[in-house]
């Protein structure tokens, strides 16, 4: 894999920001898009924009084929058995909310448990809090180890026969922890609980096989894997999806409508009320082609090399604190520099054209666990190079100097 060549395919990365060539290190928030994805969306709007599943006309069939083709593409990409297990949503957030509002409401009641971890993104936390409030179920948390990983013994101890749902992030967007999903699935299933995986940060970076994970639901986000904004996916086991009620009602999702009652289409369409995300699905399909051309294993290896390279340099800096496990982690580094607040840090490096994230990363409970109010984060993708890491390190050194001079 040649990151310098890959980078050429991303028009946005060719610009200068504040007089410096852009170094984009915020792909965990959203990834950039290659020309092929931008072109696929443009081709759709210029060539065959039409509503799907309705018209008899040529454009309508073309659009329908492309939209359903995107579903097949996603199914293959995460190794779902059937395309009908792939439901398009607005993003990972909507996918998780769909599980909570439909499946969750039907199975949870007083005395039942929902098991989470403190490292969950707000998207995989608040839907369950709301579900617990609505149904009287209890929330339980698997504690974190000091290095930000979970211990399977604690997973065993937390999940009980009362547990109905275990919801867990596969790869943490803050700590970089890669959770042992297969083992968690096995433990959950032994107690009759279902496992919901937040795959927002795993799908873009590692090869995912939902059948091997044996998860019951899997949510992913298109915009973090080179696809357009506004599209995500909910994968679910067929029998579960079949027993679930839709949560959005309207056109496209119906079979037969009477004045006083209606019936739904079969999977997956009963969950896709209204005109679906056609252009977005077409873009996501092109993004998957792009990822497959490079290869998920090559992408993962490249990110690991970069993270390792960055980690070596960063750990040598004075006053730096790096959060999360030291090994077995994903390609992002969350950290703080002594005496420089993360916002100030992000503003200073931005003046040198370097985009990093500062804040709570939608993980306020995790920030409290880390005992910080916010952190800085640099996240890598296949278009980042060692030069980008070098620029980041220079930026961090400048920020330290700047603040020690300025504070004096």
């Amino acid at each position: 894999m040649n990151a310098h060549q890959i980078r050429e395919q991303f028009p946005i990365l060719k610009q200068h920001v504040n007089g410096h060539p852009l170094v984009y290190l915020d792909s965990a928030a959203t990834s950039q898009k290659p020309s092929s994805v931008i072109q696929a969306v443009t081709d759709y709007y210029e060539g065959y924009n039409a509503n799907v599943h309705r018209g008899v006309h040529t454009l309508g069939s073309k659009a329908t084929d492309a939209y359903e083709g995107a579903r097949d593409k996603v199914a293959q990409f995460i190794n779902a058995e059937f395309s009908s297990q792939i439901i398009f949503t607005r993003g990972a957030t909507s996918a998780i909310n769909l599980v909570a509002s439909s499946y969750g409401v039907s199975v949870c009641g007083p005395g039942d448990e929902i098991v989470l971890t403190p490292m969950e993104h707000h998207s995989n936390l608040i839907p369950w809090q709301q579900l617990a409030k609505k149904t009287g179920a209890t929330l339980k948390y698997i504690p974190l180890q000091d290095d930000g990983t979970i211990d399977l013994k604690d997973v065993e101890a937390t999940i009980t026969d009362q547990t109905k749902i275990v919801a867990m992030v596969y790869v943490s967007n803050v700590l970089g922890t890669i959770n042992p999903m297969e083992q968690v699935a096995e433990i959950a299933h032994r107690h009759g609980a279902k496992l919901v995986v937040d795959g927002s940060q795993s799908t873009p970076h590692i090869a995912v096989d939902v059948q091997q994970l044996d998860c019951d639901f899997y949510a992913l986000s298109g915009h973090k894997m080179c696809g357009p904004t506004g599209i995500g996916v909910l994968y679910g086991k067929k029998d579960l999806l079949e027993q679930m009620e839709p949560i959005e009602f309207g056109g496209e999702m119906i079979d037969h409508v009477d004045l006083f009652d209606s019936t739904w289409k079969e999977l997956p369409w009963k969950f896709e009320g209204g005109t679906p995300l056609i252009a977005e699905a077409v873009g996501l399909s092109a993004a998957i082609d792009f990822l497959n051309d490079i290869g998920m294993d090559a992408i993962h290896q490249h990110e690991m090399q970069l993270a390792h390279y960055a980690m070596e340099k960063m750990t040598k800096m004075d006053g730096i604190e790096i959060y999360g496990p030291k090994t077995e982690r994903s390609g992002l580094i969350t950290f703080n520099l002594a005496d420089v607040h993360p916002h100030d840090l992000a503003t200073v490096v931005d003046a040198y054209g370097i985009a990093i994230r500062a804040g709570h990363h939608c993980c306020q409970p995790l920030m409290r666990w880390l005992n910080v109010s916010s952190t800085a984060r640099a996240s890598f993708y296949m278009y980042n190079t060692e030069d980008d890491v070098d620029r980041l390190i220079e930026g961090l050194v400048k920020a330290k100097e700047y603040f020690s001079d300025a504070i004096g």
Partner: protein
Amino acid sequence: MLLDDLYRRVIMDHYKNPRNRGTLDHDVITINLNNPTCGDRITLQMQIEDGVIQSAKFDGEGCSISISSASMMTDAVKGKTVKEALEIADRFSKMMQGELQEFEYEDIEALSGVNKFPARIKCATLAWNAMKKGTTNSTSS
């Protein structure tokens, strides 16, 4: 460099040695505000008697801009009537919008550079919003 426009010496001075940081121990109005997009939070306490802000103290977590702004704000409103304090706050918002370059307090004027960093305006206005909230509570009660 543009950065020097943002991080002026006075700002760094207030950041390093914030004025009025701490808590008040008598009957006070307490306002907790946070900036949900970044996690910064401030606790502002004011003692208001006969429509005059007798004392003001703050505590919290934040970047150089939010801490220095809280430090300057508490300094500026102490001894002012609520009405005067709200007028200062109003001019401060105008300065953040870029509609006002000069400010009657030199220290606060140093924050005018924040206007060129749209992502940081919220940091600068946090303490002022807390003050506005606190004074509105005091007049309505």
